[in-house]
């Protein structure tokens, strides 16, 4: 029995992790009363409205359990800084309760540097925050993983970092989704790619439009969005990842997905 918290960049990353856990018997829990007192309940926001915005969603973790293990997955709403702030907040929130947190993980895109460099940068920033004050995390025995090749380290709690798409190459969640899409929806993805290739250079797009079109990994995001608009018209990628077949038995057997699954199995201390 283990409690794991995983910080990810955005809501679609939450669905990616959930998709990996579902075949392992994990189910979402959405009622506060179902959550463990010293884990889930201490991680729920109780403030509304967030920063005075009446329409902003209350950013709570997604809680999943297989009846024995619990995993909380939360979008940080950003990259390095936001991920570290979220991890620091969770460690602070649970430090009264020894054993409440068995593992903590970060899943981040490799969209600015190479995987080893991005990992090293994240690790440096994380180390700086966790050592901000000598006594702040004294209730834990925290260590940080050393490199992309040794990306989980034992401690109290265990700590893991995974770089998307495959802990090796530069890329993002979208690269992984595209790979899965090519496996499950090959024609839809190919035609979406043709469509995107066709329209990216339209003359009617002005310089401001093109600056968006040419953003890093913009093409991959556009291809997936085009496919999602067919599979789930009007819905977000996160909804489509949850409700369509992007991550089904066949795609979960792809080498890049197997690497992610292995990371999560080790981090969450799962048997299968």
């Amino acid at each position, binding site marked *: 029995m283990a409690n794991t918290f995983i910080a990810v960049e955005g809501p679609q990353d939450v669905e990616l992790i959930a998709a990996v856990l579902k075949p392992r018997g994990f189910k979402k829990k959405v009622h506060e009363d179902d959550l463990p007192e010293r884990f889930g309940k201490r991680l729920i926001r109780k403030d509304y409205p967030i920063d005075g915005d009446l329409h902003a969603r209350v950013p709570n973790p997604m809680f999943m359990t297989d009846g024995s293990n619990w995993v909380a997955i939360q979008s940080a709403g950003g990259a390095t800084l936001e991920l570290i702030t979220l991890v620091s907040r969770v460690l602070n*929130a649970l430090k009264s*309760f020894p054993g409440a947190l068995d593992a903590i993980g970060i899943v981040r895109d490799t969209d600015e540097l190479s995987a080893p460099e991005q990992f090293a940068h994240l690790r440096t920033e994380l180390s700086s925050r966790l050592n901000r004050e000598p*006594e*702040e995390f*004294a209730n834990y025995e925290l260590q940080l993983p050393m490199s992309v090749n040794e990306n989980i380290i034992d401690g109290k709690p265990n700590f893991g970092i995974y770089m998307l798409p495959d802990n090796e190459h530069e890329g993002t969640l979208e690269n992984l989704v595209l790979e899965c899409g090519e496996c499950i929806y090959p024609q839809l993805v190919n035609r979406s790619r043709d469509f995107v290739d066709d329209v990216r250079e339209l003359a009617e797009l002005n310089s401001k439009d093109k600056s968006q079109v040419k953003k890093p990994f913009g093409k991959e995001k556009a291809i997936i969005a085009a496919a999602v608009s067919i599979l789930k018209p009007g819905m977000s990628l996160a909804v489509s990842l949850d409700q369509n077949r992007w991550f089904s038995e066949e795609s979960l057997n792809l080498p890049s997905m197997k690497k992610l699954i292995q990371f999560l199995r080790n981090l969450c201390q799962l048997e299968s």
Partner: protein
Amino acid sequence: MAFHLDRFKIHAFRQLKGLELKGLGRVNLLVGANNSGKTTVLEAIAAHCQPLEPMAWLEIARRREIKSSREPILDSIKWLFPQTGSSDVDDPYFQGRVQMEAEGTTPNLETIATYEGFIGERPDDEADWESENGVATTPDPSSYRERGARIHLSTTVRTFDSLIYMATPDPEGKATCDEEFELWESRAFKAPMREDSTPKSPTATVSPFAHRVEPLQVSQWSKLRHAGIAESDLLNAARLIDPEIEGFELLDRTGIRSSLFVKHRITGLTPVSVLGDGLRRAIAIALNLFAARDGVLLIDEIESAIHKDGLGTLFGWLTKMAQQHNVQLFVTTHSLEAVDALVEARFRQDDGLLTGFRLPKTNSGEIVARYSGSSLDELRHGGLEVR
């Protein structure tokens, strides 16, 4: 930066055992569930800061009790000592030991108090007899044998302080001073007369109902004026709650006792006793803050009687004054609004000296959690619970 207390460990005091607060700051916020020992920590600090003062120990022992239904002082004191779980609550031979240790600029490094219960012949001093209605009576000679307790207080000070307190240093560079007194079940306690030169620190406590104890305010006001505290300092605190207040007066209208009045722009001279709870609370906190200059101020349930909209302003003033007068604050609260107001006050003062501690529930397996001001800010801006 060194504070009066940088670290404080309660080895044993009431029900608390082995509770350590490390990395204390200028303003120390104590949160936790009911019965987690927040008030007990304040009491332990108060005792440690005045370790050889019998009257301070008696006052701490009595502070929780309502005057009309007090336990005999012997029993009130006994409950400061960890109980053994014995079924005989009246065990006359109860023995207990209290121990606290500290680091910081405090002169007191360690405080040890022992309680040794006995049955013996009470010293004959008819003038001191108490009856239930408070009227002195002549005792029945056959009842001279009764429960008593010998309280031994000791404190360890540093070598450089040993000369001041007439203590002999040991080879480790520490020296011990002590004090002993006896309590009897039915005899009022009289503090021994001696020079006021024991190692102690200025200490003041604001209980949740302190603002309703008028005589206390009169005596504090008088002491502060004698000590040279400007009326304007107190006025600034009162004006945070009611800007119409123009000054203070100590008046004796009955010829029996004096009362503290405010000069109010609308209501004129108005006794403090008829003011709203919030204003009286602010005045009580301010009076105690100045009384604790260069020492510690202990505020239990800081949110008591103050409207949530006034908390931020009051705490901003309080943290500023605490810095200005070198007062270390220890405050307890159950209120998230109070936590948020303190976090905000810290940032308004641009002062990284707020520290929070969540005390564990008794026998729950939980441990003390320390939060820096930044951690508290991070948690509360993330909407998470800290209590």
